[in-house]
């Protein structure tokens, strides 16, 4: 094919449509209406943190509140420094993270596989999706005693519970992600003679990626919640849940609070890195 005599008109058309292209990009890169500058937001966060900590410290120093029950920020910070070298605390954190990782991986695998089966097959969906929905509706914590009965007072019971609460989230989001793929993309793939394999990878997986990521994110969150809840109940499983429970009963409130603070920090770090990866993989989306 030849490109004769079209240069003129093509550049003309290009400059016309080009203007629009850039104006759209400009729009999408500028902050959305109402979004505030990051620095100012950070300042407000810092403000509330320092404010609350200061009030707390004062209230506790002046015996307005009982230090025995709520501790105070300075003691918590001191305790936080100590926790980093405390074998019990480190072991507990290790146990918790191990259980979270195992239950998340299990939940994710089961969830994604089941999600694709339900999302892509009408019969499987009709049969099993209602069950998943019911599971989502029931406050899942009621399953914990049953799982303890089945697996004993052990780490396994905790992992089983966390897997359960995690996989439900993954399934629902993967199915939603697949449902959101516009049928026209299947038509195009068909017109370009895509094999089943191509269809799966280039249309289904790519198109459902936002849903898959949302599912994994909520799955991870729920694994963490599930593991800690289970550890509050199962002392043999150890972990952070158990330690916070133990320390609270021993009136080591500063230690318990420090441990909670540390978990919070881990959650923030994991969550932020997750969102970073997600934004890169699904950068094609309009945000």
């Amino acid at each position, binding site marked *: *094919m*030849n*490109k*004769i*005599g*079209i240069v003129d*008109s*093509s*550049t*003309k*058309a*290009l400059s*016309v*449509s*080009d203007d*629009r*292209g850039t104006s*759209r*990009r400009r729009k*999408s890169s500028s902050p959305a209406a109402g979004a505030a500058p990051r620095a100012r937001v950070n300042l407000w966060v810092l403000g509330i943190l320092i404010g609350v900590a200061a009030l707390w410290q004062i209230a506790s120093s002046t015996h307005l509140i009982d230090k025995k029950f709520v501790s105070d920020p300075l003691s918590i910070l001191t305790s936080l420094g100590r926790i980093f070298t405390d074998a019990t605390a480190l072991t507990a954190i290790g146990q918790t993270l191990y259980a979270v990782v195992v239950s998340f991986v299990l939940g994710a695998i089961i969830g994604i596989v089941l999600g694709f089966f339900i999302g892509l097959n009408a019969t499987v969906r009709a049969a099993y999706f209602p069950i998943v929905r019911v599971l989502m509706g029931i406050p899942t914590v009621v399953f914990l005693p049953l799982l303890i009965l089945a697996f004993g007072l052990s780490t396994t019971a905790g992992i089983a519970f966390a897997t359960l609460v995690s996989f439900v989230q993954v399934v629902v989001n993967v199915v939603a992600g697949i449902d959101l793929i516009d049928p*026209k*993309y299947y*038509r*195009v*793939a*068909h*017109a*370009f*003679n*895509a*094999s089943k394999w*191509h269809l799966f990878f*280039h*249309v289904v997986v*790519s*198109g459902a*990626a936002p849903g898959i990521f949302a599912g994994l994110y909520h799955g991870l969150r729920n694994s963490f919640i599930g593991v800690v809840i289970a550890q509050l109940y199962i002392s043999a499983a150890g972990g952070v849940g158990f330690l916070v429970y133990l320390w609270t009963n021993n009136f080591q409130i500063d230690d318990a609070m420090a441990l909670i603070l540390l978990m919070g920090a881990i959650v923030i770090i994991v969550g932020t890195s997750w969102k970073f990866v997600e934004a890169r993989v*699904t*950068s*094609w*989306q*309009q945000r």
Partner: protein
Amino acid sequence: MSQLVVEDLSVEYTSMSGDRFTACTDINLTIESGEFVTIIGPSGCGKSTLLHCLGGLLQPSGGSVKLGESVVDSPDPHKASFVFQDYSLFPWKSVVDNVGMGLKFAGGSKKEVAAQAREKLEFVGLTRFADRYPRELSGGMQQRVSLARALALEPQILLMDEPFGALDEQTRRALGEEMSQILRAAGQTVVLITHSLDEAIFWADRIVVMSASPGRIAEVIEVKHPQPRDLSFMATEEFQQLRVHLFEKVEFNQLQRGPKVSA
């Protein structure tokens, strides 16, 4: 390249309620290699259905579509490639990956696919946008990407389903003129569906006029004016006569057919 021959083609649908519905029937049409054929007709006359059959995207209920010696019964983008009205670019693929999609599905190596795709992008004047995502492009540019994607497979026939339907008037004219010149220069066989009388006449070697319920070919008009044409063609008496004729055939009939509005 070979002739596309449509013989006694008919398509019937069964609706959800079980009613049989004839989308088009008695379609006989031969499209020569290098010919530019436009199809025009009222909504619901089965234009798109016919086009989908030409590309093997839809199985006819009766009759046949043949390209040369072989029966068209499944999509083969090397033979007939589509440009859809809504562009249908994959939003999760970059522009160059969208263009290379058909080649990739056809089993091309990564290197070949990328090289071919970039060449076609250059052909439609969008090299600068190769690594962008479709959402970053205007409608007109997206439709050009869609054209590049169809041309990447060097198809014998290009099937365009109202390719400019979603664009505004100005872009439509500019892009339309540009595309028709590109395709003319390439000697590409094209079947194009349009709602616009001007488009139907301006580009066509032949205009296929369809009528509705059931969809059938009402008339085939040859446009004798020499190619390539420029805008002065639109001022000729030939053009105006064709336009009046088409208006009566397509729009006037549709008006009479349409639901009566009671005062």
